[in-house]
């Protein structure tokens, strides 16, 4: 159920991100002199101060926000897999070093680090922002994966594979990784949420490329344009809501996966007649 609702939200946003710009071919940055108009038939979600259509911006913003989220989550997850699985499987000094590294990145506060890094970023394109977020965001996944790898490594089927002569790489990627797929998926999805939030935060601080329309940059302009003071709620509600919705969707899918892995977590309906 959760997975369905969550996946529904995600699919919807993914469709918007992929198809939206094809359907609405307007330029999201296009200005007009119809500034600061509330929602109307012409502009469903109203306009910004410079007359940009907020619906168009929201649709295009989905691309950037999702793009950054997915891209950095991909990078972060690959880092996490590499560090977590290898550390966990190989053990020894390699593991010690990798897990100290992981723990360092884990306790260093990520957003301030992202802010600092982004502050120095020579090029603030979508890709580089994604990389910065990934660099600061892989540690949690790596830690979880390492712990899981350690326990899976001791499982008999890994021992059995080793005994039947499988090589270490094959064991890591064919025996251990598939078992960890739910964990990897959860960590990936969680990283997507974190990355979307981080990108939004960065844009909101004006530390990302503001000529690219993203939900974060929309909020930045809304804040700078004093949408709150003017009462232009239609300006700052949609981007924030979209972020929250996507995050909710991802979280729902995640909880769904958790519940499959750990049935105890499921919400239950207590039959009224049961006397237990």
């Amino acid at each position, binding site marked *: 159920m959760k997975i369905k609702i969550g996946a529904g939200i995600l699919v919807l946003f993914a469709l918007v991100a992929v198809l939206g710009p094809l359907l609405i071919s307007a330029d999201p940055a296009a200005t007009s002199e119809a500034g600061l108009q509330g929602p109307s038939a012409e502009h469903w979600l109203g306009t910004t101060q410079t007359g940009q259509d907020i619906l168009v911006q929201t649709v295009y913003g989905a691309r950037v926000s999702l793009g950054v989220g997915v891209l950095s989550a991909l990078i972060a997850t690959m880092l996490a897999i590499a560090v977590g699985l290898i550390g966990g499987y190989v053990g020894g000094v390699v593991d010690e070093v990798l897990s100290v590294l992981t723990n360092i990145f884990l306790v260093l506060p990520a957003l301030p680090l992202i802010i600092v890094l982004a502050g120095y970023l020579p090029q603030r394109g979508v890709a580089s922002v994604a990389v910065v977020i990934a660099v600061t965001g892989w540690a949690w996944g790596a830690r979880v994966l390492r712990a899981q790898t350690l326990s899976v490594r001791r499982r008999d089927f890994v021992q059995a594979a080793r005994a039947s002569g499988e090589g270490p790489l094959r064991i890591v990627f064919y025996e251990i990784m598939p078992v960890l797929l739910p964990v990897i998926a959860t960590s990936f999805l969680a990283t997507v949420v974190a990355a979307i939030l981080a990108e939004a935060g960065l844009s909101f601080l004006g530390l990302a490329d503001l000529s690219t329309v993203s939900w974060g940059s929309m909020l930045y302009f809304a804040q700078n344009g004093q949408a709150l003071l003017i009462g232009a709620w239609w300006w700052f509600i949609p981007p924030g809501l979209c972020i929250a919705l996507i995050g909710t969707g991802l979280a729902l899918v995640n909880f769904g996966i958790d519940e499959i892995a750990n049935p105890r977590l499921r919400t*239950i309906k*207590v*039959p009224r*007649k*049961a*006397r*237990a």
Partner: protein
Amino acid sequence: MNVLEIRDLGVDYLSGTGAVHAVAGVSLDLRRGEILGLAGESGSGKSTLANAVARLLRPPAAITSGSVVYHRRDGTEVDVLALRKNELRAFRWKELAVVFQSAMNSLNPVSTVGAQIEDVLRIHEPEMSRAERAERVVELLQRVGISADRRRSYPHELSGGMRQRAAIAIALALNPEIIIMDEPTTALDVVVQRDILGEIRALREEYGFAVVFITHDLSLLMEISDRIAIMYAGRVVETGTAEGLHRAARHPYTGGLLRSFPRLRGPREELLGIPGTPPDLRSPPPGCAFHPRCGLAMDECSATMPALVPRKGGEVACLLNDGTGVS
């Protein structure tokens, strides 16, 4: 004479893919002061039955039918399934205590053994003073063979056997009439298991409580119990005295179980075992649930569900023994 009477008890685990009838139409008596062994393969519903009696089932488990009646010494009857929250708290542990399968997991890891015994005393016997409680804790621990200084130990500081003894000490705290023991020795070594079994028997002699002893090790039950009930696929298929079953098991399943155990003494009898695998309780086979694995099955077995009928020295649910089924 009976301290507990279970009648037609049914328990389902509700789930999306259909209810699991973990316990179906079980009727069973527990006599005062006896050790009743409950045996059966994994998944046959032993723990579910025990938890239902102790009212410990949690959703998605639901009791679908039947009654459990407890007889006090003074003759009053208690409908266990109808107890309200407060009555239930008094019933549990003052009248009925439970020792769980794995003592490691049934002791709170962050609290000392002594504190966990005291907890019971504090709630159920509020009039006891602190000193009296401490004294009782020491006494209980010593009674099960743990030295008094161990009361300040955390569970992880004790060996498996000691933890099991501690769990028994907790069960003894309020002198209950019934103690349900759900595989209390499965995780232990034979030597330690032997010690604990001895302990249980000695305590029973001393306090006179009745024990429901659950295990899948029939040979163990043969030694310790006065009476034995065999469960298969959520139903009791045979009851009888240990000796009676050993001598002449009536149900083919009981027979199969008995012939599955290698023996240490005597000639090396041929082991027969039971072919096939236990049924899926979501959709048990029609008729007698055992018939697909039964060497003596008749056509009728797949159609008629045998009832548990009294026989000499016990009861059995098998058409072969039913009189009605055998032509």
